[in-house]
């Protein structure tokens, strides 16, 4: 029996050694996986980096940081800034055209410098591919390894003069000094030490939880609700080549994200001077004047529209696609109605198309308490 006991001891030790995952994983570091429930018809592939799995602890920390103005590294109320200063839940995480601070919905940084582009909504980014921002510059193909994913946008925002205009060391030091945060970092990442890398990871995890899948159109797709006649007629226009032909770039019943996440020159201009268009990422002349097709979900909240916010209302957008499209050498081949300057909708068709677009409104997204500012910050009792 003595030999047998020794033998089983050896076997037990061997099993521990052979199945060990990582030598540097703290023994006390345990996280709870955050489960994303994939809505019906949505993609099954999630864009979650292997080095930043979703955890309850990471999302919790990220939500605090997203809303905490001390992310700026400053404590003066006039100079504090967090993501939520501009990314406002009630507006699907854009600042909104009626924002009392940001005139016409154009945000600016802490020093008053306007952002180069207007805002893209933060909706369903866990399915984002082909990069982030209007030109997709932050993507896996970026030569700079620190500028490739959603996580990296956090340090960029901290440093950018037109955003937080801060200092990462100051941010780290301040967050480190705030009671409650070190413990949250330890729970999420196994160390109390505040790093910008983990800060980016946590905020990215929170942003990936922002899912919209409960619009009237979603319920229609799931057979739970009917569209009105006008909405239904607008849906037909949206989905047909001889109608509005919106679906090739913006998805539809076969792509409920309502974006392909690809880049198109949609015929707004004939002269191009924006150094942040898609062309300045790819250097492909066919990308001149091209920008990411934004999701059409929650359009009701995300005015103004286009990368430069040139259209203040949904009616202006529809008018543009109906009769305002202009030709340029790099216009997308999908803009096949350019010969007639657009799809030439009649007034009733415009109204129907607008009615359909408004079925993409998901009010539960903009009121979801899980996406809101936490009732208390980590150092508040």
């Amino acid at each position, binding site marked *: 029996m003595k030999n047998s006991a020794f033998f089983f001891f050896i076997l037990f030790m061997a099993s521990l050694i052979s199945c060990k995952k990582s030598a540097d994983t703290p023994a006390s570091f345990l996280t709870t996986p955050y489960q994303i429930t994939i809505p019906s*018809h949505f993609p099954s592939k999630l864009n979650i980096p292997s080095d930043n799995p979703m955890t309850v602890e990471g999302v919790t920390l990220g939500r605090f940081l997203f809303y905490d103005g001390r992310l700026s590294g400053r404590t003066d109320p006039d100079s504090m800034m967090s993501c939520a200063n501009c990314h406002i839940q009630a507006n699907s995480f854009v600042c909104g055209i009626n924002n009392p601070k940001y005139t016409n919905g154009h945000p600016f940084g802490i020093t008053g410098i306007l952002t180069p582009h207007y805002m893209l909504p933060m909706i369903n980014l866990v399915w984002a591919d082909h990069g982030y921002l209007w030109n997709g510059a932050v993507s896996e193909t970026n030569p700079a390894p620190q500028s490739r994913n959603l996580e990296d946008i956090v340090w960029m925002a901290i440093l950018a003069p037109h955003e937080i205009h801060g200092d990462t060391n100051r941010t780290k030091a301040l967050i480190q000094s705030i009671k409650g945060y070190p413990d949250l970092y330890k729970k999420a990442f196994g160390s109390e030490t505040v790093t910008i890398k983990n800060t980016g990871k946590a905020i990215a995890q929170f942003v990936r939880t922002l899912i919209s899948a409960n619009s009237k159109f979603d319920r229609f797709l799931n057979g739970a609700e009917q569209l009105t006649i006008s909405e239904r007629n607008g849906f037909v226009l949206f*989905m047909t080549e001889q109608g509005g032909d919106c679906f090739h770039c913006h998805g539809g019943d076969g792509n409920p994200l309502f974006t*392909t996440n690809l880049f198109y020159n949609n015929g707004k201009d004939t002269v191009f001077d924006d150094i942040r268009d898609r062309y300045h990422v790819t250097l*492909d002349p066919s990308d001149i004047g091209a920008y990411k097709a934004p999701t059409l979900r929650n359009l009701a909240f995300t005015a103004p529209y286009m990368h430069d916010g040139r259209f203040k209302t949904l009616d202006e957008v529809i008018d543009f696609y109906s009769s305002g499209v202009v030709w340029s*050498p790099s216009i997308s*081949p*999908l803009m*096949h109605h350019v010969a007639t300057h657009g799809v030439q909708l009649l007034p009733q068709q415009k109204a129907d198309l607008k009615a359909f677009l408004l079925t993409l409104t998901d009010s539960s997204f903009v009121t979801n308490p899980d996406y809101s500012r936490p009732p208390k910050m980590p150092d508040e009792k």
Partner: protein
Amino acid sequence: MHFQDFTTKAQRRKDQDNNTNVLASLRCRGNIILRPGHPFSFLSLIFLLILSYSCHKDHSPEISALKNGTVQIDFLHSVNGNVLVFDSLEYVTSLGNQYMVNDLQYFVSGLSFHQSGGTWVYIRDSSGIHYVDARIASSCQWQITQQLPTGNYDSIGFIFGLDEADNRSGRFVNPPERDMFWPEMLGGGYHYMKMNLKWKNQAMQETMPFMFHLGIGQMYSGTTADPDSIIGFIQNYFPVKLPVSTTISANHSSVIGVEMNVAGWFDGQNAFDFSLYPMGIMQNQSGMYRAALNGRSVFSFQPIVYK
């Protein structure tokens, strides 16, 4: 599914080899010897097998696949013998229209390999469906992992597009295949092909976009601009059978080149005039019909040898 089953079997064979090695290794150390008949030897053996099987990673599918002989389809794209160059207005149709190709994406399905004796093998990898984006090199190679009987094959067959059984809405939820979806009200399923072009004739000052898209066609009782007047649908997929010359042997991966001559879609006895379809062809069955007739002869076999 067949691929997964095959891999699992191969992995199991490799795991069995590894388990044998673990036992041999332990035996050779001298201080632990499993004696036949020992009360714990059987349990220990089971434990070691489970331990080795459950903790083992990094199987090499390439090795197991090569054991049985495989075949790869390389999709090539040309214009009258020259490699297709995107975004370049250098091509002219038989009707004298200049054109450039901006995007070329399509499905092939129902791939089969045929021998002169009449035997044939139907490929079930990825449900027998492959998506090609001519701009993405990786999508232009279809590595078939399904085992094929060794021997000479003199033809292959496939469906251009998707037939009724395969063309089910919602089967692809992820990009890039997802973005080929064809509106449900126009017949549903997926585009067989998206070829996005720009073209011009001598009367035109500038190039104009043209969406050469193929999928399920519609029959209208009224205007084609009114999907409510659709009274029926028409399948526009078509079979392609190509004579090939290839030998599949054990432990060898053969490559078959399938070349699409893009010009073939527009030239020939069904010459395609872009100016006749200012609203595209998704809702114009006569345009898709003409295109599909041309499509039957755009593919050819190209022998490929990788050194």
